[in-house]
């Protein structure tokens, strides 16, 4: 990797002050499970690496679950520096947000979960094999075309309309968090701001864009999840059972009252450059009782707008199954697919 200067600030403010206001020259280092790979492959070549691991601010490093009293609108706060393993194993989070903890428990393997952080997970770069190959000058590296569009694209996006770069967003925590209505608190040179997570991601098309909307000198401080008593679940289809990425994921959340689902959110992972909100599927479920038939209809509706590439039409089918299974899981149905 290219030589760099290593910084260990002790506060978020000090870290912000070390960051440049353009992409590429400075990078934040959390667990390093993504950044170090990017550096070794010369995809990231920062001059400065700013470590976040010496910042002790509890807001940044802890999980806070407030007392949940009737009539209140409590919010769970998960610091950006929290390890994925700690999310996966957190008893209260498991109870409130199984969509999140199930997704966390399936990330990579134990090593990745023990090093990888929530902030790093949301800000990680895409896994497109053309993007990750230094010698391929793709759109995101200043080239003129996306090689996956006409090339090896079995793992790429199926919701491709309007996207010159057909990566999929790699985070499996993000769809769950979006379904749960989460937002992120970030800090920059002019202080803190909060962004709804469903507005946090963007489809990049050029070198000076990331997969999210943060400014180069902003840092994710924590993720806030409202406790709204939503039924929620995430379902992933995976080729390998460990150390692999899902082929498709569906995260769902809804309020169940009088047997009917309302406030329905259905978010798909690994099918689009950003976590993909399946609006048509949400409409199918809104106000309805969740049955197997309805879940299947929702699965069908979730594929509206899909425009698969040469090698990934199979993902359209997987989306249907993932949505169906996630809805049934969240509704409390006995999963007949578990063996």
């Amino acid at each position, binding site marked *: 990797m290219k030589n760099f200067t290593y910084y260990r600030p002790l506060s978020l403010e000090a870290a912000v002050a070390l960051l440049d206001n353009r992409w590429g020259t400075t990078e934040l280092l959390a667990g390093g499970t993504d950044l170090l790979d990017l550096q070794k492959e010369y995809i990231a070549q920062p001059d400065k690496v700013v470590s976040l691991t010496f910042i002790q601010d509890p807001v940044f490093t802890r999980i806070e679950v407030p007392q949940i009293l009737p009539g209140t609108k409590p919010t769970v706060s998960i610091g950006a520096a929290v390890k994925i393993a700690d999310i996966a194993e957190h008893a209260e989070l498991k109870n409130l947000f199984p969509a999140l903890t199930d997704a966390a428990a399936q990330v990579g393997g134990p090593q990745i979960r023990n090093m990888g952080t929530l902030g790093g997970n949301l800000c990680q770069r895409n896994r497109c*094999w053309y993007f990750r190959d230094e010698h391929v000058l793709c759109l995101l590296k200043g080239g003129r075309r996306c090689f996956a569009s006409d*090339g090896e694209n079995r793992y790429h996006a199926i919701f491709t309309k309007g996207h010159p770069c057909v990566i999929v967003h790699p985070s499996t925590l993000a769809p769950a968090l979006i379904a749960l209505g989460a937002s992120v608190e970030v800090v920059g040179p002019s202080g803190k701001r909060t962004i709804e997570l469903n507005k946090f991601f963007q489809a990049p098309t050029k070198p000076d864009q990331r997969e999210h909307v943060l400014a180069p000198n902003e840092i994710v401080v924590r993720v806030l999840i409202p406790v709204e008593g939503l039924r929620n679940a995430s379902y992933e289809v995976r080729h*390998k059972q460990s150390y692999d990425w899902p*082929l498709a994921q569906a995260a769902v959340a809804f309020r169940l009252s009088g047997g009917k689902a309302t406030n329905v959110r259905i978010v798909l992972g690994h099918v689009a450059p950003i976590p993909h909100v399946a609006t048509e599927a949400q409409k199918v479920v809104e106000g309805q009782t969740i049955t197997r038939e309805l879940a299947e209809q929702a699965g069908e509706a979730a594929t509206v707008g899909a425009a698969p590439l040469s090698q990934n039409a*199979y993902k359209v089918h*997987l989306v249907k199954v993932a949505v169906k299974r996630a809805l049934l899981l969240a509704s409390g149905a006995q999963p007949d*697919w578990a*063996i």
Partner: protein
Amino acid sequence: MAEIKWPEKRRLIGTKVPRLDGPDKATGRARYSQDINRPGMLHALILRSPYAHCRIKSLDLSQAQKAPGVRAIVTVGQVNYTAGRKEGKPGWEFPVSVTDVGRELFYHGDEILAIAADTEEHARDALRLVKIEYEQLPFIVKEETALQKRLGPSTVPGKDASNVLAGGSRTEGDPDGAKKAAEVLVKGTYGVPVITHCCLETHGLVAEWESPKSLTIWCTTQAVPGTAGQLQGFLAGHGITCSVRCITHHMGGGYGSKFGPDIQGQLAAVLALVAKAPVKLFLDRDEEHLAAGNRPSATATVTIGGSRNGTISVFEAASYGTPGVGRAAGVNIGILPYVYEVRNVRISTDIVRLNHGAARAMRAPAHPQNCFITECAVDDFANAAGLDPMEVRLKNLPQNDPAAVTKIPTSFPALRNTIYTDEIRIAAELSQWKKKWHPPGKGPTKGPWKHGIGMALHTWGGAGRADNDVFVTISSDGSVLVQCSTQDLGTGERTVLAIVVAEALGLDPKDLTVVIGESQIGRSTGSGGSTTAPGTAPAALVAAINARDELFRKVAPKLGLKPDDLVLEPNKITDKASGKTFTWRQFCARLGVDTVRGQGNWIPGLSNLGVGGVQVAEVWVDTETGVVRLDKIVAVQDCGMVINKLACESQVAGGVIMGINLAMFEEMIVDEQTGRMVNPDFEFYKLGGMLDMPEIIVHMHDMPERGVIGIGEPPTISTAAAIGNAICNALGVRVPRTPFSPDRVLAALHARK
């Protein structure tokens, strides 16, 4: 000398003996070649072609040479340049304008040069300062494209530009007539992609010149003396006469890809010579995938036919496969149809050359491909005939050869029907085949999951070889040293030698010191073809018996006894004449300052060749997602006389795991736009983890009367075919190509609808 035979009563041979180096490996004490660090050692890295096909137009090393820490740069053109011998100069004393400019590179990863620097980081930085202008040339990286064009861009030096070479053909009997007469006739296409060896220890070495006449390498190789010899030959080709010693005490897998120093060995030796310092050069994972060998792909369109009662009368296969820029075919027409006896046969194969790394031997070369092609077709035939495929297998097994039965009753031809029939019966029992097999697609279901079970057979040689010297030295303290230059690839070879010598000397294997993996010890052959145990175990027995006899000859007179009256039993030597006994130590103590040394080489009669093998896979397939879960694999394997049952079972389990990866996960993916492999890693070049592994039940079918036969290769052969058949049994449709990923399973399911 009396004829040497394996002992009738065996105390150790055939039992489960933990490997001697197990604790060393588990604790990290075992030093692999990659663990070797020498004083003043430099680190070298290789610069490789970024393109699938190009020519070096210019090469400027000036900046790299000036970079911090750089001590030597040597190009591939220079190490290949032997024309300079006429001028009395080695190739690397010529400028790159002579040796490298104009050189053609034929694949992504083709070697260009190597740089040695004080640290790995400096070497990597320096690689990036090499300035090369390339002329990009047309390339082909997909078999389908090559088959269409046939005469494409070249993949090898010289004028031969054809991408499709005839790999041979064979016709026996009257296939057309048999097809017409067949009551059941099915046609199918089956294929496996190019996969790579994935040795956990990547290729490479540490090279150190003790003097201009003497080079030592610590090299990860499966041919210790062979590698030393090849390197010596290479240096001689440049006018350098020297001795080369190769040390390989522990090794992290070779699987057929590590038979010589390779280009990295040549580069490291020359860098060390030029820089006058030891050099370490090991490949990274991506280089391993790109340039350190692979298993050729194979695709075949098979027509198989026969009678309704399951007798196969005709087998036709039109096939092709790619060895990349290599020449070896993935399909061996000599052994198709695989295992079974079919009278009417028509086989042909094309070798499709592509601009990617060259194939090398890989654990049972050509066999998994041939097995997959044959065994999938056999199941499809059985399914079409409405028969249990196990019965069809039994029906079409080759008969025991009557001539062999009378002449050489322990030979494979004399026993093949018996071996397969026994092994199928055992596998059927262990897998509950009779209970669990069902017509395709008609099995038990659990929600969207469907159950399937499948079987496949395989065969292999595994003969012993001469030119394997074993030395057994007994000292007066009773200690025993066993030496052989052979290598332990992770197979347990070190322990094999200990078991055999301990058996012959009445000792405990743990009490012996076994030194292997040093070329100067003597002759040994490369670990290829599953020949190591059958080549060295007989030699070890001979050496041990010679050492024992020598011990008796030397000590008996000192005790006033006759050597012929002495009997060796576990830890005890008895004089038949007087009934007097000595412990091993007491007896050896009489050697005084003397030692005895017994030498042995391979002799015929103690080893054999030819094995069978049967595997059964049980799977569940999620018909909604296409996800396959492996439930259980039963592997029944013979290898003549089992020496170490524990190690044999491990070998079989390891072979099965490798076969599972071929079936489920592995695939080299090369991009047609860039000519670059897109998955030279372990992220998208997938290998199963713990959670992906089924229960693996291994049964060793011990046949001590046959002598020792190799076990390394056979158990990996039929796993993929058995899994393919199990999936077909679950779904009622054939998934024609591996890896059996969800997209392929779904495609097969949807194609039926």
